[in-house]
């Protein structure tokens, strides 16, 4: 697992530009999605002394009052465009990921032309993989969350108050691991589709499944470790934001918040790099066939009658 994480780090480190581009795309779309919110907020706050309650410190009461103002509009007017642009980001990620997989699988820096060609070539395949993913992950998640609901109901009957909480946490960990395993499987399938240029995605999915099954510990371990690193990054980042950024520093808050998001995004690319690395290792391995001695055909040689002395 350590080797896999190390090689994934190497691959991801060699291709940092992808993270940067995806991050900029993420930021740009979010900024566009925030236009309505921003306009509403500026309209109410820019000339109000009461707005200071939100600048120097964060008065939750003032924020609730702001959201309740009719001139701010319903929160949905800000949330709907933001949510739609989140889906746009998801779609663009699907479109541009094939190029990333190719870049990760190549030992050289692929050209822009290669990148886009790969993206265009594989986009429909990735859409199909996504639907297969939904077919597998959707029911799995539904079953897991159903089980969780049942267990929580049971835990709620316990007189031990924390039983509910611990059950919840335990269930979430199990759900996280299982869904991560499925995600890793489909990341392998995506690697296979791009690198093998296989148009039958079901074969890539089957191949991904076999690889996942054979290397379950290594791959899942790497994904979980990277996922935990991402979680810690988020937690520490938010704590630093609260501790080191003065409440009135808009620029400071922007820098810290964006650093957190950049690192989170990088974590996901690190996972993909792990999938590609494992895939390449699998491809590089030549199947070892045990040499078995070939038996010469046994032919009955008639024994010549011995002729004794002349």
């Amino acid at each position: 697992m350590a080797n896999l994480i190390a090689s994934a780090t190497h691959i991801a480190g060699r291709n940092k530009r992808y993270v940067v581009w995806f991050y900029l795309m993420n930021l740009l779309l979010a900024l566009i999605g925030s236009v309505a919110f921003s306009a509403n907020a500026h309209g109410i706050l820019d000339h109000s002394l009461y707005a200071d309650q939100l600048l120097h410190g964060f008065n939750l009461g003032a924020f609730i009052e702001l959201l309740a103002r009719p001139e701010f509009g319903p929160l949905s007017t800000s949330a709907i465009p933001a949510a739609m642009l989140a889906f746009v980001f998801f779609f663009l990620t699907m479109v541009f990921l094939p190029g990333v997989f190719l870049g990760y699988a190549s030992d050289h820096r692929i050209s822009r032309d290669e990148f886009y060609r790969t993206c265009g070539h594989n986009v429909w395949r990735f859409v199909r993989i996504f639907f297969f993913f939904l077919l597998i992950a959707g029911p799995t998640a539904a079953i897991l969350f159903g089980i969780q609901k049942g267990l929580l109901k049971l835990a709620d009957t316990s007189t031990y108050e924390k039983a509910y909480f611990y059950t919840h946490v335990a269930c979430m960990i199990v759900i996280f691991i299982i869904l991560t395993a499925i995600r890793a499987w489909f990341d392998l399938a995506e690697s296979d589709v791009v690198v093998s240029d296989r148009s039958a995605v079901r074969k890539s999915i089957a191949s991904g499944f076999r690889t996942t099954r054979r290397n379950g510990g290594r791959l899942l371990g790497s994904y979980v470790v990277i996922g935990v690193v991402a979680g810690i990054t988020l937690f520490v980042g938010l704590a630093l934001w609260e501790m080191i950024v003065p409440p009135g520093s808009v620029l400071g808050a922007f820098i810290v918040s964006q650093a957190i998001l950049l690192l989170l995004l990088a974590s996901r690319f690190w996972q993909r790099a792990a999938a590609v690395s494992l895939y390449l290792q699998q491809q590089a391995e030549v199947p070892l066939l045990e040499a078995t001695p070939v038996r010469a055909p046994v032919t009955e040689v008639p024994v010549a009658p011995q002729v004794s002395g002349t």
Partner: protein
Amino acid sequence: MIPKLPVRGTALWRSLIALSVVISCWPAQLMAEEIHATPLSIPNTVSAINSSVPMSQRVVAYNIDAKYDPKTHSLDADEVLTYHNLAGQPLDTFPFHLYLNGFQPKATWIRETKREGTRDVNFEKWDSKDYGADDIKRFEVVGQGDLTSQLQFIQPDDGNKDDKSVVQVHLAHPVPPDGYVQFRIKFHDQFPETLERTGWKRDFLLAGQWFPKVGVWWHGAWNCHQFHGSTEFFADFGVYDVKVTVPQNEVFGASGIEVSSVNNGDGTKTVAYHGDDIHDFAWTISPRYKILNDTFQGSMGPVALKIMMQPGHWDQAERHARILKETLDRFERWYGPYPYKTLTMVDPEPGSAAEGMEYPTFITGGTNWWVPNGLREPELVVEHEFGHQYWYGMVATNEFEDAWMDEGINSYSEVKVLDSIFGQKGSVLDQWGITMGEHDIQRNEYISVADLDPMARNGWQYANYNSYGGITYGKTAMVLVTLEGVIGPDTMQKAMHTYFMRYRFTHPTKEDFLKTIEEVSGKDLRWYFNQAVYGTQILDFDVMKADSWPSDWYKENFKEKKGETEYDTEVLVRRKGEFIFPVDIDVKFDNGEKVREHWDGQDRWVRYMYHKKAKVESVEFDPDHKIFIDRNNFNNSYTAEANMAPARKLTNYWTFINQFFAQFLSWWMV
């Protein structure tokens, strides 16, 4: 149709009628003699209070002996109620609350709750565990016999014939003025899984509103309302002696003081409690309570604090004790003495709907195992429920008709107490850089429903549950905090003290309260009360315009020079709402000069003009921040130059959330 008497034999008929009258009166005379033979009275006990004499005019004495069955969550009890007729007239009709009957599918409480929702439940689906009942098995009036068959359910508020939360009995022989009557009632309770802060959850029980309780004779009539989705209670002061038999392993807590606890030897114990000068009685059991005993040295004597915590919250026991003592200290100093010898604080079963409720000398808190110190939810709940010992417990207003007088006045006290302990800015929340004061909570509750209902309205007649909450709690608190700005904080405190001392152990009306404030402040405040208490007017000040321009703007080659150029300044402000309120306005100029204007607020708008060697910098209504009922704080000020930092900060938060959501989606999906 009345039968016609025969003409012949009239004398005989007269004799028969006379005889029948004598016969019919005979048992009554006998009964009167019987009543006379065993004179009834309300005990003058004082063992539960730090006073040598009773503190209330005692109307009732309840003596209840109950046995609880934890398997069926039900109990059977015998109640003996002695009633002292202080109505000043004979009483021949007595209504009784049977609150637990409110938890039946067609009852008014459930109907209203289904329609409007309440704090705890929504009734998407009826669950048999929600069923509650208070069945009277036998109803006897001493000296008048068994009247069980004559009990009649009445529905004085909504005429819902399926509602059985009030039952009435008519006595053949009226109780004379200053006379006594004794009711002997055998009843069976079925508790619901906690609803409206009463009932069971797992192996926990909180028994509130659990026994047949007589209504209040008030202002010449019986006041005994049905149980409604949003309303609370109203009852007379008296003495309570309650015995409850429960399993031996249960930890028991109740209103009043513990008198005895006897092991019955059959796996049960009988616990006896006594209460003086209280108007309700609640009790609780759970095998898992952990008890913290503490004492508060009150001005009338020591108060034993019994803090019954869930084991998982034991690390918060001190926190609960601290807020209780701090609150007691302030209430004693500000309003008057706490006369009871005990106060029991119950941390109810997690997930139960028994949190945050008040009964005399007995309150329930509300916390979670994970609550950080900066989130002062436990303090808020405990402070609020303790406050009800004054505003409900002692000043026993009619919670059905004047909910704002207990919940609202108490919310005002809550604002004052929490601010004085934790500071105004973060009295409820001060964690991770996020703050919220009790003012903010109450104000936001109010402004969300500001013009929907007046404060002075029957509790069950609000537009909806949100309005009930927003007006009775939030608006009242903000109206009183604002009133403090009108008459001064010291005068307000004096008025509250006078009100408490004058009306404790009585049932004051809204006018009693308002007139006390006028009397103490020496001011005619009708202009304020008519709008704030009886009206639904909105207060909303707005700065329409604040602009400066050079006085010599028309001259050619004119150049501005700071400190030398003269400017004309126009400030135009208005009153958007209908609420008329005098207000101060600060106008600041960019040379540091400040002008304070006072506007009577009568007209819709007012214009102020200035001619100075400075430009206007900002205009602000209510610069001392004394007004808390303005619906929109954002338009109360205007700065000539825009400060975009606050909006940018919030936009940054919003962008962060958007980006995070987008990444989360992509993390899992592709």
